[in-house]
């Protein structure tokens, strides 16, 4: 693993402790490979390595008694800084508050909608799930099943072909039922599908949601940067949910997504179950990414 490689590199520099820009380059190269293998985007890795190089060549590593540990600490801390602080607060300051879920196909939006409903219900919100995926076969049934499981109402309009119309109905329904939180599920869509990106932009314009959460699969590769950038440019997302972290994907996509959007990672999905949603802890993910 990376820590062992770094330790070896610094050990081979001998006991003179004379660390120079050239010696650091070997260690930096190992970090670069580790981050690329962890699926961090190559442009993000470039910037990251430059930052680490600056810090490592500085006084602390050159004079340190344990330069390998010091170097790893600089790398780890730099990752943690990019990943940001634990900010899983949802800014649900209006009544009713609205959360709009968006993302690529299969990333975990529908499941996360239900998980969020479960979470917020425990915080004494009265959620209404809104079925705005009118395309995927049985998407509405899927959300309905999850809502029923939670005893949370689901706004469904099977015959409706315009998601904004469904959203309109949902606001009326929320009022009727006394729900103070709308969680809106949308169809998975490609960031390059203009028509579908326009649809979710229209939904945003109508609903003016307090939170727009970009749901991303933790195992996403180099493409994560481009996808997140497009969604953010189009919608100005307010937060990120990283799903399927219960697998063994290193999760470097998180670094890519965070650095290109600047938006906080609010939650992580850690199982298929309804309670499988946790707040995001940057140092845990940093350790995982470094392998």
């Amino acid at each position: 693993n990376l820590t062992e490689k770094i330790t070896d590199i610094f050990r081979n520099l001998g006991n003179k402790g004379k660390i120079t820009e050239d010696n650091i380059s070997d260690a930096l190269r190992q970090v670069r490979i580790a981050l690329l293998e962890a699926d961090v985007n190559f442009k993000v890795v470039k910037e990251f390595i430059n930052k680490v190089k600056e810090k490592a060549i500085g006084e602390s590593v050159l004079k340190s008694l344990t330069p390998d540990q010091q170097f790893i600490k600089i790398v780890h801390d730099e990752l943690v800084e990019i990943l940001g602080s634990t900010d899983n607060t949802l800014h649900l300051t209006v009544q009713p508050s609205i959360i709009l879920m968006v993302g690529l196909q299969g990333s975990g939006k529908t499941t996360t909608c239900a998980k969020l409903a479960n979470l917020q219900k425990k915080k004494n919100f009265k959620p209404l799930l809104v079925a705005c995926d009118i395309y995927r076969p049985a998407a509405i049934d899927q959300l309905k099943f999850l809502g029923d499981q939670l005893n949370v109402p689901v706004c469904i309009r099977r015959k409706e072909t315009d998601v904004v119309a469904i959203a309109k109905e949902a606001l009326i329904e929320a009022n009727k039922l006394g729900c103070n939180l709308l969680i809106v599920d949308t169809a998975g869509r490609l960031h390059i599908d203009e028509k579908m990106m326009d649809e979710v932009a229209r939904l945003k314009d109508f609903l003016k949601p307090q939170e727009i959460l970009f749901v991303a699969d933790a195992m996403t590769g180099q493409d994560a940067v481009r996808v997140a950038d497009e969604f953010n440019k189009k919608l100005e997302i307010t937060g990120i949910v990283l799903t399927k972290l219960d697998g063994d994907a290193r999760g470097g996509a998180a670094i890519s997504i965070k650095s290109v959007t600047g938006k906080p990672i609010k939650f992580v999905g850690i199982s298929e179950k309804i309670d499988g949603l946790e707040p995001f802890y940057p140092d845990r993910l940093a350790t995982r990414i470094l392998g």
Partner: protein
Amino acid sequence: LTGKKNIDEDFLEALEEILISADVGVNIALDIIEKMRKDVKVSTTASLEEIVKLIKKELTEIIKDFSNPVLNIENKKPAIIMVCGVNGVGKTTSIGKLTTYFKNSGKSVMLAACDTFRAAAIEQLDIWAKRAGTECIKHQHGADSGAVAFDAITAAVSRNIDILIIDTAGRLHTKTNLMDELKKIKKVINQQLPDAPDEVLLVVDATTGQNAINQIQEFNKYLGLTGIILTKMDGTAKGGLVFAMLKDLKVPIKFIGVGEKLDDLRVFDINTFIDALFD
């Protein structure tokens, strides 16, 4: 002369980045670019096109023995295809597409809804079955997947069906109990019909990074894979994982998913794939 060496180095760095950004993986990318550095032709040619051509040749070398898109479905009736993969990659949708693909070549197809776990998974497959004009064998939500598979094979045999495709629940390869369950389903199939399943296809999402390698390794270990379907190639991900998949794991890519509709399935073609990497 030194000026030209610098141009080549910039070319090579740019090409290394193209490969890495396509998810080819840092090891394969570095190997190929290192080969280019040592290649006499590269140091004597100035054109980027020539270097790209050489790289394409290297990439083709890696995967040329694995592009037989033929499925092992001609010699048995019913031929059994088991579809598996991690969560959300496109298994159920791909089964709809495969149904259409087979029906277009004159085969009769039947589906088995062996994802009895996820919310509305059975309903989802059933809709694809209706759209593709075929029948779906299903039990109630929560039923035993092995029992559904058993019933489906019985029905496929009695109705003289050419191909039975079995949908399974998405599962992360790290969950040993779920991987054991999948192995048990395969065993049920095999006990009922010798030599079955005839194909065990792993569905992999093209947007996946290096974790795809782990997925293939584990599913291969538990089930023995006969092929891969690489989905969501209509996005901007290039699917460069294919090279590591074929080079190290040797599981052939059979199909590519290029959209969400019934006809959005293509037989995997090496040259088209490699050309697309550099678009």
